[in-house]
Each structure stands twice: as structure tokens, then as C-alpha cells.
């Protein structure tokens, strides 16, 4: 901070008086991050190596037991299930969200507003209430089954609720807006003259899409993938509600260990492993798709 002594002062610089204290402005930021982000994270890491005691507490002592416990088939399965669901959710979101966001970005200003409104409407109600809506739709004597029975498509009610598909539907439904908006934002920014230039140079519609449009909207798709994959690893109440108790995700497991199970060190270890695995997946994704050099990245 004081290494500026040899540098001649610029005209007017002295008027502010004394040393440059601008660095003080960022101090609150660092304090905040330290207290509310880094601190709790380190605390969690520390707890994950602590020993569980009977009741709710834990005892400070370095142990790897909490991690060793995860090798149990039940927990491995739980992680596998979580990843499977997160990946399927993300994949479906890409398949539905990209075309939606793309066509929305190409609409006229009026229709853009209407579509945007339709996406935003669900956010006006609590996500829990919206999930109960799905319950009503999907249950054995629910709206969907009644409709399909009446149409003669099926002879007996489908058992969708409390199954893997129901959870998947709920997850896709909850996270789709994030994918759509991320894709829409990058499609909106597209310079369509570039596509015309590609066509002019001899590219067919499909070729121009693949080499220009897709490539330039990849940052949006990338953001969408991150915005849906990361939360879907941790969302547990959707699985709890729509999956009954058949589908146990890492998220539910952590919650369970924190509360009923009263094993905070194990919960911390689970959370740590989950965070590390999610980061690893994102790193792999970036490696495979070569999108790390693209602008507009979230990570």
C-alpha cells in the first residue's frame, strides 16, 4: 500500500489528502465473505472429520469414519440415484429448454413479452403449492389418469405418482425456467447477420445452425446446464413429495442426518462429498464440451 512513494503524484491527486484509502471500500466485502461463506464452509469441513456422540452433539477429534461409512451400499446407491436423476433432469431440460428458448428469442417483441410472462407466472406461487398441484395431476385417481381413461388410451390408472418418472417430471418442471431463460438470453444477443453471412457463403440452414447459432448460444446453454444441474443435485423436497419414500437422494439423506438421524458429522461429510462431486462433474463437462474459453461463463 505504501510502495507508491517513488511515483510522482498526479496533479490533483494530493487534494484528496494523505494516503490512498480506497482499498478500505472492499473490506466489508471480504469480511462478509469470510463470515458467511468461507467460515461456514470451513466449519462444515471441520465437522465432517469430527466424531458423532449420542444425542445431537459431536466431539472434536480427527476421524475418517464419516467418509468410510459412505462406502456402505445404501449410501453409494443413494449417490448413484442422485446423479442419475440430476443428469436426466439436466438432459431433459436441454432437450426442452433449448428449442423453447431459441424460438422465444426469435419471436417478435410482443410475443416475447407474452412467453416471458407465461414462464414467470409459476414463480408467483410457492414452489410447494405447485408441487401439490402435480400431486393432484399425477395421483391414481388424478386428473391425468381420468383424462387418459376417458379417452380410452389406458384401461387402468397409471402408477406415476411415487415413482421415478414423477420425481423426474417434478424436477424438470421446477428447473426448466432457468434453462429457458439462460438460452433465451444468449439467443436474444445473437447477431442474425452472422447466420445470413454463413448462408451466403454456402451453408445450408442446418449447417449454419450447427456452426454459427449453436456455437454462439453455447454459453447460454452452458449456464443453463449449470443452473439446472447444481440445484438438482441438492433438491430433496421434490423427491420426498412426488417419490414417496422410495427415492432417497443425497439431499434427503443430509437433511435426515441433520435432524432425525442426529449425526451432524456424517451429514457434513455427505455434503462435502456431494459438493466435490458436483464440482468434478462440472469440470468434466467443461473439459468435454470445450466451452471453458467461451465468454459469459458462470464458473
Amino acid at each position, binding site marked *: 500500500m505504501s510502495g507508491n512513494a517513488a511515483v510522482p503524484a498526479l496533479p490533483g491527486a494530493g487534494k484528496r489528502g494523505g494516503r490512498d484509502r480506497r482499498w478500505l471500500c472492499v473490506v466489508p466485502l471480504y469480511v462478509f465473505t469470510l463470515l458467511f461463506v468461507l467460515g461456514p464452509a470451513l466449519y462444515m469441513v471441520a465437522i465432517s472429520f469430527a466424531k458423532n456422540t449420542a444425542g445431537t452433539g459431536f466431539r472434536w477429534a480427527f476421524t475418517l469414519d464419516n467418509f468410510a461409512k459412505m462406502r456402505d451400499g445404501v449410501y453409494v446407491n443413494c449417490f448413484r440415484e442422485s446423479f442419475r436423476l440430476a443428469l436426466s433432469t439436466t438432459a431433459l431440460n436441454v432437450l426442452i429448454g433449448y428449442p423453447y428458448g431459441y424460438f422465444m428469442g426469435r419471436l417478435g417483441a410482443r410475443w416475447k413479452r407474452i412467453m416471458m410472462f407465461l414462464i414467470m407466472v409459476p414463480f408467483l406461487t410457492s414452489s410447494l403449492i405447485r408441487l401439490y398441484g402435480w400431486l393432484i395431476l399425477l395421483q391414481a385417481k388424478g386428473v391425468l389418469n381420468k383424462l387418459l381413461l376417458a379417452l380410452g388410451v389406458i384401461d387402468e390408472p397409471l402408477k406415476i405418482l411415487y415413482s421415478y418418472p414423477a420425481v423426474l417430471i417434478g424436477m424438470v418442471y421446477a428447473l426448466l425456467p432457468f434453462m429457458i431463460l439462460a438460452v433465451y438470453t444468449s439467443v436474444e444477443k445473437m*447477431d442474425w*447477420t*452472422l447466420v*445470413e*453471412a*454463413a*448462408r*451466403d*457463403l*454456402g*451453408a*445450408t*440452414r442446418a*449447417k449454419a445452425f450447427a*456452426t*454459427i447459432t449453436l*456455437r*454462439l448460444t453455447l454459453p447460454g446453454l452452458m449456464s443453463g446446464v449449470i443452473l439446472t444441474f447444481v440445484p438438482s443435485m441438492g433438491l430433496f423436497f421434490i423427491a420426498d413429495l412426488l417419490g414417496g419414500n422410495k427415492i432417497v437422494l443425497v439431499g434427503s439423506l443430509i437433511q435426515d442426518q441433520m435432524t432425525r438421524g442426529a449425526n451432524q458429522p456424517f451429514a457434513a461429510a455427505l455434503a462435502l462429498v456431494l459438493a466435490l462431486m458436483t464440482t468434478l462433474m462440472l469440470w468434466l463437462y467443461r473439459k468435454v464440451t470445450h466451452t471453458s474459453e*467461451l465468454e459469459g461463463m458462470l464458473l
Partner: protein
Amino acid sequence: MEKEDAGVILELRDITKSYDNVSVLKGITLSVREGDFVTLLGSSGCGKTTILRIIAGLTEPDGGQVLLEGRDMCGSPPEKRNVNTVFQSYALFPHMTVFQNVAYALKIRGVDKREIERRVMDSLAMVQMEGSAKKTPAMLSGGQRQRIAIARSLINRPKVLLLDEPLGALDLQLRRQMQYELKKLQKNLGTTFIYVTHDQEEAINMSDRIVLLRDGRIEQQGTPNEIYDRPRTSYAAQFVGSANVLHGDAVRIEDGRVLLRSMNGTMLARTDALPLREGDALTLAVRGENIGIGREPKEGTCVRGVVEGNTFAGGMLRIPVRLEDGTEVVITRQGIHFDFAAGETVYLDWPPEAAVLVDREAKP
């Protein structure tokens, strides 16, 4: 029209186009000879860019035909036309290097890698940009991007190159230099250029033929000299070379010249064998450099006005003179010397061959 139909490469027949019920092109008929540098000249909104887009296949006309080498291009997508475009915004692909941009057209056609390498480097050399092959468009200046856009559009060796105000974003000095280089490039390659601009100087400097557009119609077409010397309408006279337009009634017609009278005085103009009668209301166009100025009236043929001042720009002195009826006539002179003060009453005259009658067709 020296060689009618000889080597016509592109023909537009009665092209019409409307956007949201607003008619943009109202019947454009045009033929372009192979190897010509043709400029579509007009102010913004005259439809010149729409014509380019229709030729390129990026916009479908409502009516009319586009014939490229005699073949009707109707419904043929842009990638099937042997025509390339230099876009106003350059439209370089930001996620590709200069090399990849220029190579794009070859790569999607699956041209052999070594062949691509050779042709791209040749193309870059043509615009003196060999050293920038590995850069991305964001690292280049406006003038350099322009060169890359030209190199990219010429790599397919198109029959016709369309250029949409390609120099519009460059500063004056660079513009002048690029005008010269573009013209040289066009001469060397022998490619037909169709060039869109609103800048009359650019059009005069570069073109073999100028097509002057106004409100979706062709106002006049011809060589730069034809349009400059024999504008057919007052619009053409004013747009190309900013001529002065004056009105008067024909009082005497003889020896290919006509004497006009107005409240400003009397004027002479050449008749160009137009059918005229005494008493006709006529319009003439005369260029500022051809107008003489004096303190005493010349016998019979001069108009009277008051000097309003003078401004010096681009090596030329512009002297606006207000006539009796309120019309402003601008006289131009080389250099900065001018003997008349603002407010002084002067008499203007010009040789009859310097004044051309315009707007004859428009009158019934």
C-alpha cells in the same frame, strides 16, 4: 447502352417488395454487364439494401425475377447462388480466427485441407492481411475487419460480389484509400461488383455505372459522366454533384439553346433536342463551378441575387447567393479568394451549355 445484352450477367425484372404494406421497391428493372462496377446510389430508405438482399437470396421479392447468367433464381436459397455479400457490419464470425473465417466457405464444402490453406493464404495476401491469420476479429481494427470480410466473400470466386456500404464505418482518410484499393481489386479480378452507398463521391470515384434510386424506383442510370453532365431530373442533379435547380418560362428557342425568364432575371440553357415550345414552364440545373459572378448585369442573360457569405471546405469555397424569389444558389470556387462581401448585390450568369433542362418527363 453501348453493347446491348452483350455479357449481361445479372438481370432484375420488375422487382417489387413491400414490408408491412409499405412498398419498398416499386418495380426495379436493371441489367448488369459482366465485370462492371455498378453502384446503387440513394439516400437511406430508398431500397438499395433490399435490392442487394434480393439478389443474394436473403429476401424474397413479392414480384419480379432475378436472373443470374440467364437462370431464374426465384426460390433458390442463398447457398445455391454464385453470389457473395460483404455485409455492412462485416458479419465476421466472432468465435473463429481470421483464417477460419476466410476458410468457412471452403470448409463446409469439404475442400481438401491443403487446398484450403493455400487458397485462404492467397485470399489474405490479396487484401494484405497474411500476418493476421491467427487473430480473432475482435483484435482487428475496422479497416482490417473490412479487408477480412472482402477476402472471405471472394474465396468462393463468386460471379457477382455484393457490397452493402462496406466503407460506411471507416473514417474519411481510410475510406479514400479503401475506395482506391477496392476499385483496383475489382479491376484485377474482373469480378462484377454491385456496390451500395449513399455517398455520391464514392459512387463517382468507383463506378462504371451508377444506378440512382429514389423511393423504390430507379431515378436514372448511366455512367458517372452521364449522370453528372446530363441529369434527367432535379433530384438526380442535386443528389449527384449538388447542382442548383432554377425555374423559368421559355421565351425564345434557337440553335439548341433556350432563353428562360423568371422573376430573378433571364437564364440560358441547352435544349438537348428536347421538344420545347415558347411559354413552357421549365426547370434547369446548373453546377456551382460553372456560374459566373459580377457586379454589373451582363447583357440579357443573368439573374440577380445577394451574397450571403461564404464557407471554405475541402479545398472549395462555397458561396450561397439568395435570389429575388428566395431560391438559394450555391456557387463554388477553387481556393479561398473571393472578392464579394456578404450583403452585396451580384449578377450571376453561365454559358448555355452548362445548364441542362431537367424534369421534362414528369410534366404532362
